[in-house]
């Protein structure tokens, strides 16, 4: 072998190494960032993190929700690596600063499943142990498709100048030229053009019929939806109104369903596609069997504090609710990743900065009389039958693991030990026992901490800690048969909307809102978006409060009369519908007195559609999109209430209205106290509802039956009508020109 050959053999791994190093994530990004630095004033920072939330629900089902988040500080149309190019580019093209798309099938049961979103405090282990709030779960769970976006009206300069011109023209008596197209409710034509381009391209990208979203289904909410970057809960005062240069458009497509053809493009947008990481669990066969499943895509254009554009944040989520206890022959709610998704997690995505699986411990439902079982732990203690096991438990996190492995002799196989342990060979024996002890302590401590913690966090990037594949199992070994809980703790607020009436001519919308809090009023915005073929009569809007009855002595609760008598419907804003042009939009601000139901009724007439306006399956009916209920603010002073509660010191039901309502003040002095029959114990007050903030509650979409013409009768109708008209017209003509004269024969 010549020297030269040897040299070349030695050099051979170098290019291979280089090639592989390009594939490896951290150096790749770093190197690319270096590249980008030349073109960009600031560094390209991109990150991809994924997480999976597995949450056993009180009724034996299991919520699984995948989150894929990509952050980027790039504003350019092409200088990014992780951002999904087709999605971001079309968002850029339509000049949208926020796009939210969701496609769902099935019904989210708020009553038993609660809020889909759970927030957690996460320790940022890398950086000084900072805590950040992380929200998992997707709250856009409307059946069908929902799309909303914030679109720029135009370049800010132009819009303001147009504004100024308009204002000038209207104030001056001469009346200069005004934009004729822009009525008070119409979408500006440019915005509408952008919206159409957005819906069309999203339709193409996700294989959904979003293209059908046009003026007739699109509304511009006043305050219901807000920029995600701002406070996510709308405020009561009118400040939620959007500023001129941007428009928020919202549309529902309730008849759209989700299936594999939507999932495939979804997976393609992810950095690791569907081949590695958590996305590899997204198996259409198992997901679309679930009772509820849906996906959502959010694209946010971030604004830097300085006002400059600060890149994009793309969040993609997939959510499914499995019912292990229902689908199997033996009614057991045991589940594992394999049983849910068909395979365990075997590959981690190297591009992901973070990849976590978060398993929540089951929150046991109230078994009848309730009691003070606030946490799952207490429930476990009282009832061993419901004890569950999770296998495997989360491995030691890396920063603990490093420490433990430094001292462990037995597991000397790892390279870490080789790298770091060499120097410590001298005092091996002394350290040995010490490290051993410490290691055990750490293990024990970790185990205890895990046992105690309400949720288990697995790092899916370190699959090696779980022997290469992660298959989390949750079992209830002592539970032979899952018993469906007789009563599930209701969420603080429930909403349902039904259509009543008979016949195809007209009907009634009946909305029921229930405040389950015993002591606190809640305020909500009821957002309704009715298609033009349903014509509601706003003057028939009737509101009624049905309050639960308390007994003062037993419940320790007092209800003031004005709590119920003062108006419940505090504000009503609407945008009227125009047949074949735009839908009706209602935003009503409703106060829900504590522990009561608020009912709303409204009559509507069905429009009669032309024969060509009916879909091919006209007799199925037409979908009415879901109504949305937005809780307006956190119920006030929740924790304080629970403490002051005392049987012989009644607290009064909170008058949760903002200060300044005249009628209320007046009645406060009146002290008309309504007594009532009882049934509840004072101790129930804080535990009978599940806590947690719900951002919005979707009601179900509804079907409305519209009368159909006889589709095969077009020609006949034309012929018959024309005949009758011609007959009468001819006879009238005859009568007009006829003169009566004598004829002498």
């Amino acid at each position, binding site marked *: 072998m010549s020297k030269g050959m040897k040299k070349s053999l030695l050099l051979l791994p170098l290019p291979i190494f280089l090639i592989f190093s390009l594939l490896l994530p951290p150096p790749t990004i770093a190197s690319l960032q270096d590249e980008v630095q030349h073109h960009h004033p600031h560094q390209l920072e991109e990150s991809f993190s994924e997480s999976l939330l597995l949450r056993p629900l009180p009724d034996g089902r299991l919520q699984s929700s995948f989150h894929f988040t990509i952050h980027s500080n790039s504003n350019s149309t092409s200088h990014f690596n992780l951002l999904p190019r087709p999605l971001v580019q079309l968002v850029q093209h339509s000049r949208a600063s926020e796009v939210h798309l969701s496609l769902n099938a099935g019904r989210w049961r708020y009553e038993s499943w609660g809020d889909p979103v759970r927030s957690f405090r996460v320790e940022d282990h890398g950086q000084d142990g900072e805590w950040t709030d992380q929200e998992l779960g997707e709250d856009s769970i409307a059946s069908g498709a929902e799309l909303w976006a914030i679109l720029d009206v135009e370049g800010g300069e132009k819009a303001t100048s147009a504004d100024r011109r308009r204002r000038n023209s*209207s104030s001056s008596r001469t009346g200069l030229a005004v934009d004729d197209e822009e*009525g008070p409710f119409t979408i500006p034509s440019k915005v509408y053009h952008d919206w159409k381009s957005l819906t069309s391209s999203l339709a193409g990208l996700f294989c959904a019929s979003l293209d059908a979203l046009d003026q007739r289904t699109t509304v511009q909410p006043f305050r219901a939806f807000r920029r995600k970057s701002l406070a996510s809960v709308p405020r009561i005062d009118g400040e939620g109104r959007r500023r001129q240069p941007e428009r928020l458009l919202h549309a529902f497509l309730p008849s759209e369903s989700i299936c594999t053809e939507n999932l495939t493009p979804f997976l393609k947008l992810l950095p690791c596609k569907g081949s590695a990481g958590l996305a590899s669990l997204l198996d259409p066969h198992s997901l679309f069997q679930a009772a509820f499943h849906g996906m959502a895509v959010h694209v946010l254009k971030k604004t830097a504090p300085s006002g400059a554009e600060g890149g994009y944040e793309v969040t993609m989520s997939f959510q499914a609710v499995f019912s292990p206890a229902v689908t199997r022959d033996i009614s057991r709610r045991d589940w594992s990743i394999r049983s849910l998704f068909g395979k365990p997690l075997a590959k981690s995505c190297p591009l992901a900065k973070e990849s976590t699986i978060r398993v929540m411990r089951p929150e046991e439902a109230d078994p009848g009389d309730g009691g003070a079982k606030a946490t799952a732990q207490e429930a476990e203690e009282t009832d061993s039958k419901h004890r569950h096991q999770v296998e495997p438990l989360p491995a030691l996190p890396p920063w603990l693991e490093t420490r433990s492995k430094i001292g462990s002799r037995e597991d000397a196989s790892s390279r870490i030990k080789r790298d770091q342990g060499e120097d410590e060979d001298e005092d091996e024996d002394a350290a040995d026992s010490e490290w051993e002890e410490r290691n055990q302590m750490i293990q024990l401590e970790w185990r205890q901490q895990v046992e105690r913690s309400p949720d288990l966090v697995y790092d899916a990037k370190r699959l090696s800690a779980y022997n290469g594949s992660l298959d989390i199992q949750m079992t209830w070994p002592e539970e032979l048969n899952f018993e469906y809980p007789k009563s599930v703790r209701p969420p603080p607020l429930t909403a349902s909307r039904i259509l009543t009436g008979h016949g195809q001519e007209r009907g009634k919308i009946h909305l029921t809102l229930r405040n389950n809090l015993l002591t606190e009023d809640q305020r909500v915005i009821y957002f309704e978006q009715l298609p033009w073929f349903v014509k509601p009569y706003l003057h028939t809007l009737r509101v009624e409060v049905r309050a639960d009855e308390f007994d003062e002595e037993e419940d320790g609760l007092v209800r003031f009369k004005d709590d119920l008598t003062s108006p419940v419907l505090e504000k009503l804003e609407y*945008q009227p519908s125009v047949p074949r042009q735009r839908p009706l939009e209602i935003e009503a601000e409703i106060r829900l007195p504590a522990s009561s139901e608020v009912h709303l009724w409204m009559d509507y*007439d069905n429009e*009669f*559609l032309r024969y060509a306006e009916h879909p091919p399956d006209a007799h199925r009916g037409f979908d009415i999109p879901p109504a949305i209920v937005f809780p307006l603010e956190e119920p006030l002073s929740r924790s304080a209430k629970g403490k002051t509660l005392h049987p012989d010191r009644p607290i009064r039901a909170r008058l949760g209205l903002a200060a300044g309502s005249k009628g209320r003040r007046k009645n406060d002095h009146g002290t008309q106290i309504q007594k009532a029959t009882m049934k509840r114990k004072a101790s129930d007050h804080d535990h009978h509802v599940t806590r947690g903030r719900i951002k919005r509650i979707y009601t179900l979409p509804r079907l409305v039956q519209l009368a*159909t*013409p006889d589709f095969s009768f077009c020609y006949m109708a034309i012929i018959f*009508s024309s005949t*009758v008209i011609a007959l009468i017209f001819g006879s009238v003509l005859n009568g007009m020109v006829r003169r009566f004269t004598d004829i002498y024969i």
Partner: protein
Amino acid sequence: MGESPFPLASRQPSRPTLYLILSSAFILRLLLFTRTQLPTSLHQRPELATPINGFKSLLEAHYLHNHPPTPIQPPSYTLSSSSSSYSHSHSQASVSAYHSGTIHHSPLLLPLLSHPLDVHLSSLRHASSQEWVTPILWSAFDLLSAYFLHSICTVTQNSKLIRQGVIWPWDRSRSNLIAFLYLFNPYTLASCLARSTSPIENLVFLTATFCAATARPLSMAISLSFSILLGLYPILFAPLFLLLCYRRAGENEWEMEATRLRHRSIEAKGNDGGRSRRRGFLSDRIRKRKRLALSVGLVTLPVSLVGGIILSRAIALNPANELSLPRAIAASIHEVDWRHGWEWAERVYGTIILASDHTPNLGMWWYFFMEIFEHFRSFFILTFNIHLASYSLPVLIKYRRDPLFGLTVLSGLVAVFKSYPTVADHSLFLGLLSLHGDIFQYMRYPLVSSLIYIYCTFLSPTLHHLWLSAGSGNANFYYAITLVWALGGGMLVLDAMWSWGRLQWELERPTPKSKVSNASSAADKNGGARLQVQDDGAQVAANGGQGAGGDSRHHDDEEEEEEEGKEGDRGYSSDESLRDAKRAERELFGEEQEEEDEETRTKRTRVETESANGGKGRRKEARTSVAEEGKASLVEEKTGKALGEEQSLDLSERIVVQI
């Protein structure tokens, strides 16, 4: 009837009867409103309430007007936001409620009915309480309509009789009967109970008719333009209204003169020749009157229309009545560009013309435009509108001598062919038709058309139920019944047209004119006219005295309808009288005439007696020339004899026009 040319109360139909009818109708309505569930069950019937005139949509319009929608961006043309000088209360701009596509009522109704609708809305909120305002109001609309019909009938009959010179022997119950028929017509009653705006539209239409019939061009123009602004279709009647007003202005003058002369002749003879001379020639005055009426009508109608449109716009642009009305008008004119603020017109009139709402109704439009192919839609909308509009001019020409009948015919055609008809339109048509009692005897198939009306009245709710509620029928069921409605209505219109022509033939039959002129050869042409007038007076008296037995002729070719039964004998006489009155009128109004002196009047009286005999002879001849009536001649013979016998009696009731 303030300036009534008929000072004698005895000429009016019996007042107590009228009051009895009105009050019983009022009480019946109130009872039905308050004691039954009919108002709630009727107010959404497609036969009674369309989106254009339904009570529920009226309430909605009222509500939305008071609770205007919140604009996404303040429009450039609201009254309150555009100018600080006019805005007082509302900081936030509100826009016109007519941006909503669900309301189709004229803005003019909103301030007028604001209070009753408020009361009704609040009573809806508190389900237990019963409000009385809207029942009373809607009943009052009907009563007023009936009263106007009554007055129209009185006026026309009086004018006829004055021309005939007969006042006493006409059937006084006729006007009352018409009021009764209108008020107790089930269609009118149901529309009233449904509280649709059709009773208002009918009332305004009848007001305009009444004003035209009493030759009040100003009030006619105002009420007609109000009617046009409410329902748009009355615009087709505008030429007829003008013509009616024009004719009636002349006739009115003539009648007043006739009355004046008669008074003079009865009360004080002589003494007042000077005064009559000072008044100028009658024909001049008549011409002047007619021209004045026409020009006033022609000027005020467009002016009041434009005024009404401006008013509507101001109301529509002033949601929740933020500004007072005059201010709103001023602001809407000054502040808002003329290209804006017309949403209300699109909603109110655009819907009527374009028929964009396909809610089933009695008309022929909804199903046609539901089923029509999209690319033919505009063509057929054009066709349907032009078809209906095309009746206006021919009717005007054909019935130029009887514009009131022209109105009747056109209202029938509009009721059949309008885009959103209800039975209230048919009740208006039937009400107007009842004014022409003299044509009923010539109708060919009143049984068929009345049966069709009954058939449709019962079947259309049934088929509607089968289609939309039970689901056991399809849309064609209800469509078929609307076709039958159209056929029934059209048939009645055609029948009325035919019988009117037949009546005209009866009146204008080429009588041997030479005889008349022979009989009155001594007199001039004008004298001939007088002769005939005189002749008719005799004839009427004869018939009146003869009683019901003598006029079997009038019943031989038709079913007995309520009107004819009571009217037969008088109808006959009025036919004859109408014929001659028409001729007299033609001669009087067509040619220049001088006012006559006292001397000629004395001559006339002499001629009158001769002509009475001559007239009788002519009558006999005329009767025998009718081929179809063999026995009529016998009747006539009797009549002639009876006349001779009862002449002394009749003389007491005869009043001869002695000009």
